């Protein structure tokens, strides 16, 4: 019977054969709990008792909650600052690292190490760096040069960038590695052809390297955007004691969800915020995929 199928039909059969197990996996392990969360967003549930219907109550509460809007803004600030900064930095490093021979492996390792180290431990090291004198490294430096102290974490304006820095720092190594894998996947023959044609270095970069890196760039844009929109570890650990920073100035959506769920045990409200986060992420990702699509 298989033999009678057209080539296109055979492909469909193969495709579904390959996808069968993964589709079952995703439906059971991912879609079902997600649907469940969406359901809970219309309910009232403190995790301990029974669920009761609440209609749109959770969403109304969210709309009227000033903290939610603050958190909403913060989340986008993380995205708008974090994604471009980390992508440009990692591309510049990867591009130059790719052309470096001497101690190449060592340098690459230096950049990658932060990614491999426990996020919790690192968040605390950064937290200590940011403290005022006598224990903060940065402020001690400033004090040595007679520069006035900077409040990094106990400030409604400085705290968010101060927390973003270690988040960018931690993810940089991974982005560099992906960029390097992408760079190495570009066939040498293109560069040789360009050399024969005598094309300038910048033209090579903009006309060969970057266009051929497109799939990598698309991946990193989408992936790092999702990462910054879901930022949690750094904020959580650097602001324990006053979670989300002074007057919620650093609180991202995921931390707010976590607190609603596991501090306030208001699962319905947590789920409603999850749905909002889901929609934001979906819209942002689809928009990016659309803008970066092959034309």
């Amino acid at each position, binding site marked *: 019977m298989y033999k009678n199928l057209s080539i296109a039909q055979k492909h469909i059969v193969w495709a579904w054969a390959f996808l069968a197990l993964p589709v079952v996996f995703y439906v059971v392990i991912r879609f079902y709990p997600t649907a469940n969360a969406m359901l809970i967003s219309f309910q009232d549930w*403190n995790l*301990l008792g029974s669920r009761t219907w609440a209609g749109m109550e959770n969403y109304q509460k969210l709309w009227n909650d000033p903290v939610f809007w603050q958190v909403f803004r913060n989340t986008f600030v993380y995205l708008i600052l974090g994604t471009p900064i980390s992508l440009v930095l990692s591309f510049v490093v990867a591009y130059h690292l790719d052309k470096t021979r001497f101690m190449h492996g060592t340098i690459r390792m230096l950049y990658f190490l932060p990614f491999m180290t426990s996020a919790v431990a690192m968040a605390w090291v950064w937290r200590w760096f940011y403290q005022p004198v006598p224990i903060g490294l940065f402020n001690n430096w400033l004090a040595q040069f007679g520069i006035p102290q900077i409040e990094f974490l*106990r400030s409604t304006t400085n705290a968010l960038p101060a927390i973003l820095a270690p988040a960018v720092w931690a993810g940089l190594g991974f982005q560099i590695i992906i960029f390097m894998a992408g760079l190495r996947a570009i066939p040498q023959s293109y560069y040789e052809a360009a050399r024969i044609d005598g094309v300038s270095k910048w033209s090579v970069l903009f006309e060969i390297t970057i266009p051929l890196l497109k799939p990598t760039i698309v991946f990193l844009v989408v992936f790092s955007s999702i990462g910054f929109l879901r930022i949690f570890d750094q904020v959580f650990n650097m602001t324990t004691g*006053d979670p989300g920073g*002074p*007057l919620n100035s650093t609180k991202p959506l995921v931390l707010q969800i976590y607190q609603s769920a596991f501090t306030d045990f208001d699962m319905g409200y947590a789920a409603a915020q999850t749905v909002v986060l889901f929609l934001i992420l979906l819209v942002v990702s689809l928009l990016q995929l659309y803008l970066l699509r092959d034309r």
Partner: protein
Amino acid sequence: MRFTKLKAAALATATSALTVLSSAANAVEIEYWQYFFDARVAAMEQLIENFQAANPDITVTMTHFPYADYRTKVAAAIPAGEGPDVVQLFYGWLNDYKAAELIQPLPAGDFPADAIDAEFFPMVSAMREGDSYWALPTAVRSLALFYNERLFEEAGIDGPPETLDEMLEIGATLTERDGAGNITQAGLTMGMNAQDHHWFREGLVRQFGGEPYLDDYKTVNYNTEAGQKAMEFYIGLGEEGGIGAIGFMDEPQAAFKAGRAGMHIDGSFRIGSLNKTRGLKWGVTELPANADGVRSNYSSYWVNAITTKAEGEKYDAAVKFMQYITSDEAMQIWLDVVGELPAKPSVGLTEENANNETFGPFIRGLAYANTTKFVNESAQRQLLIDAVERVKLQGASIADSLAEAAAAEQKLLDDFYASN
């Protein structure tokens, strides 16, 4: 004859085998959960050993989880029916567990409410509803003022402060600043995120003549003149010319442990950790009184409760276990091993315990302690943190900021009591 003997012997063997079998079948196993803390686990192991020796037909297995995530873990497991038969909960969580029918009241016969009222420290009565108690603590906690003996000696200070004014005076002597005016050594550690919000609510507000809550903690009442004065006093501690700074060395207890702070208000549960700190010579005294000699303290506790999962013989075993872990003997073991204060005055206020150099100030503090009936401790704490930050970081007036906090807290209380 011989036959009969044999038969009797066989019968005897059979019955004894049967007894063994039946007693094995009767061995009830119950599960107990608490959070992980070396000393608490050690103390509970000792209690379980004693209990099992007295009740050979009951086995108790203890499971413990990391402290920071204990509440999450318990909340995920118990509703799913995976939980323990006896569980340790923070007193502030009781309402939620009661409302969700995850715990059951203690049998009035074995735990007569009036007798408990008479025997335990009064704040435990928060666990009572009608004629029955829902949970009972083994130990309670209170606040006291820790001080660094070495820094005191170096500054030529004779002893710890008795009053708030003395505290300010001593604190000023101990505070050191660098050329730019940054604090390098604090007289007193500060931070609403630590224990200071308790000190403010149940300590300062009352000492400045107020009453932080009315109507069995259903009405916020610190947005009064007394409350404002208390808040002014507190914020003043961290102003220029004060004796501390919020956020100094990140966390209050860290500053004290590192020997960079002269005084530190904290709970009895910190004793063990301070004892482990090498090179720190510390003493402890009761929270300072106000000018009229009025003292006020905050007390909290972890309670043990029987879950609804325990039924039949497990329930009976759980009741017996609860009786043992709330007995005088268990309380003394808990004090000796963990350093937490016995929940009954008859055990706690013995001559020896009340005059103990370390535990004494805490135990004496229990006599004038109040227990805030939190509906959501972290949310309520956050409101006071924010109240201070609005003043410090945004220049809001103390009156406005405190009014905002009080209104928000009232809303929190109203929402909670409306739905429970």
